[in-house]
């Protein structure tokens, strides 16, 4: 850890000596999330009632000189649940800009697509345990150590992203969450750090009429692992190869905003769907619409579907005792937002509901800006479902109350 500090300080002092327009900002934040179901995770060093208890000091430095710029956003974190200190480099990159193209190298958060908390063509790293334990929304997204080349023209623009180092989704783990797992996980097998294992993503985009239209291509790996049995009770996680071909459109429609996104998940290691440890290929789609119904009140709905290819092969190869997915997995989301008191008070509700898995995730949240630099939010994450083996159903015992207090400077 110490060498990281030294490199950081050296880089910053060197760069800042040459750069103009240095800015420094940040925040101090406390975040706490407590399970309210009265249940405690068994046999766990991080067990108990708390899903998160973070104190963070964010430092954000930016600087620029001529056509180059840099940005560093880093959190010093004390995690009270595990009693650990760490540095969380959220982003740290260098930009080089010309008239027709930009280059960005380093850790960067990239967000693509038209979904609201639903992602198809955005395969970039995410932290779902942050979302499920009520950390501020920005912590759902995690930086990629990547090189991004953006090319601009009047006709069409492009982003090309190369990610040499694989970064899977951070899913809730059994140290803090109640989860369904049919087997004991004894190991995680991530793709080797080889050049041919680099993830490559391409986005081509332009305006089509009044719609922002994008085409996406991705080659890399599933970010949610497959499970390879090692014995009758033990298994290891691994990340099969994946290609995604997709598109998105977003624009004004019927006095609101219409969002459409689709993508084909090509399961490269299991194209015929015979391997039960690897997800089958599937077609995924989102249809969303949001509208302001009255002053400072907005509502948005989304319909999400996942159509599994080679469903017969999936049914035949699925081991006995494992929960079976439907051929079409669907989700309906609803977002309601009301701003009050000169936008200082925001009341929000976000819900996920799956009609086929009959499970749900509901997040009511209130946020109040006490002053310009101090805000607080309080909310509840409520999970449930008919079956404790579905995505949200397994989290049933993890309903939690969360609160955040942040001072920005």
């Amino acid at each position: 850890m110490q060498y990281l500090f030294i490199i950081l300080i050296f880089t910053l002092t060197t760069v800042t000596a040459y750069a103009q327009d240095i800015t420094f900002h940040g925040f101090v934040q406390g975040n706490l999330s407590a399970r309210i179901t009265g249940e405690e995770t068994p046999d766990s060093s991080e067990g108990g009632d708390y899903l998160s208890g973070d104190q963070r000091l964010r430092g954000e430095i930016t600087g620029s000189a001529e056509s180059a710029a840099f940005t560093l956003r880093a959190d010093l974190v004390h995690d009270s649940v595990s009693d650990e200190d760490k540095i969380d480099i959220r982003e740290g990159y260098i930009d080089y800009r010309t008239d027709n193209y930009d280059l960005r190298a380093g850790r960067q958060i990239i967000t693509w697509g038209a979904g609201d908390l639903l992602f198809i063509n955005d395969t970039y790293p995410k932290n779902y345990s942050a979302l499920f334990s009520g950390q501020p929304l920005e912590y759902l997204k995690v930086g990629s150590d990547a090189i991004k080349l953006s090319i601009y023209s009047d006709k069409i623009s492009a982003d090309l992203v190369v990610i040499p180092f694989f970064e899977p989704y951070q899913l809730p783990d059994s140290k803090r969450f109640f989860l369904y797992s049919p087997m004991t996980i004894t190991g995680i097998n991530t793709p080797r750090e080889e050049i041919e294992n680099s993830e490559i993503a391409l986005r081509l985009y332009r305006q089509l009429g009044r719609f922002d239209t994008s085409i996406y291509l991705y080659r890399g790996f599933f970010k949610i692992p497959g499970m390879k049995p090692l014995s009758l009770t033990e298994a290891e996680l691994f990340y099969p190869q994946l290609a995604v071909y997709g598109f998105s459109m977003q624009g004004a429609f019927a006095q609101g905003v219409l969002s459409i996104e689709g993508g084909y998940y090509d399961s490269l290691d299991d194209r015929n769907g015979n391997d039960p440890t690897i997800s089958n290929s599937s077609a995924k789609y989102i249809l969303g619409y949001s509208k302001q119904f009255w002053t400072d009140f907005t509502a948005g709905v989304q319909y999400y579907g996942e159509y599994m290819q080679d469903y017969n092969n999936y049914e035949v190869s699925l081991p006995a005792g494992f929960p079976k997915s439907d051929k079409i997995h669907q989700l309906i989301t609803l977002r309601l937002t009301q701003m009050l008191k000169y936008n200082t008070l925001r009341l929000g509700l976000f819900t996920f509901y799956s009609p086929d898995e009959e499970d749900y995730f509901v997040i009511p949240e209130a946020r109040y800006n006490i002053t310009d630099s101090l805000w607080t939010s309080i909310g509840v994450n409520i999970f449930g479902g008919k079956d404790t083996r579905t995505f949200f159903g397994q989290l049933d015992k993890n309903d939690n109350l969360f609160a955040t207090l942040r001072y920005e400077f």
Partner: protein
Amino acid sequence: MKIYLKLLLLVFLTVAINPTLLHAEDAADIIKKSQDAFFAQGKDMKARVKMTLLSKSGQQRLRELTMLRKNGAGDEQKYFMYFHNPGDVRGTSFMVYKYPGKDDDRWIFIPAINLVNRIAAKDSRSSFVGSDFTYEDVSGRDVEADTHKYVKEETIQGKPCHVIESTPKSPTEYTKKLSWVDKTTYLPLKDEYYDVQGSLYKVFTADKIDTIGGFPTITKRSMANIKSGHKTEVVFDNIAYNVGLGDDVFSERYLRKPAEKWIK
């Protein structure tokens, strides 16, 4: 025939002696000219905008942003706003394509997750960043959205004004608006908003006018909510017209990473 002539004469006399009717046709023109003078001077404009939100209890909140505007064909306009303060919106950019008679296209960029998203834009009467100003107060309202009537001539702040009454054609949070439009510059010096009960609840005032680049410009304005006691004061600094903003400034590229040259 005689009756027609008499009627014609009657109409002529009524019009001649009643300035209200004489101006009936050009009330809408005056509002249009006023909107152009207020929201559309020059080919483009840049300014540093400081908003002070004052609550009845005396609490202050500040909003600081850079505003860029470019006029297009017809009455189309493009706006770009970059927020410098407060901290929770710092680095957020907001872009609007305005079309007369049609819903705007609006985008927002949220830097913490590097997200560009469309935002629903039907209600232009929503508060602009929590101030007493609405989106329309910042970028103009469709002239056709109201019926306009010439009320009288009146001198305020030592300046002769046209006083125009505007009534929304479809239900809006105000039922009537009176505007005092400077006869020389066509800038609105005062607006009074009346609610459903017919009582005055919001007042706009142009507090300072300077001539910049040849254009008379309101450099300080305020909007006071009489009923809630809340008030917003806005100062425009570093205003420049015809700076040569390209269309590319109003694109996703600059939404994600604004051109420093313009937003400083």
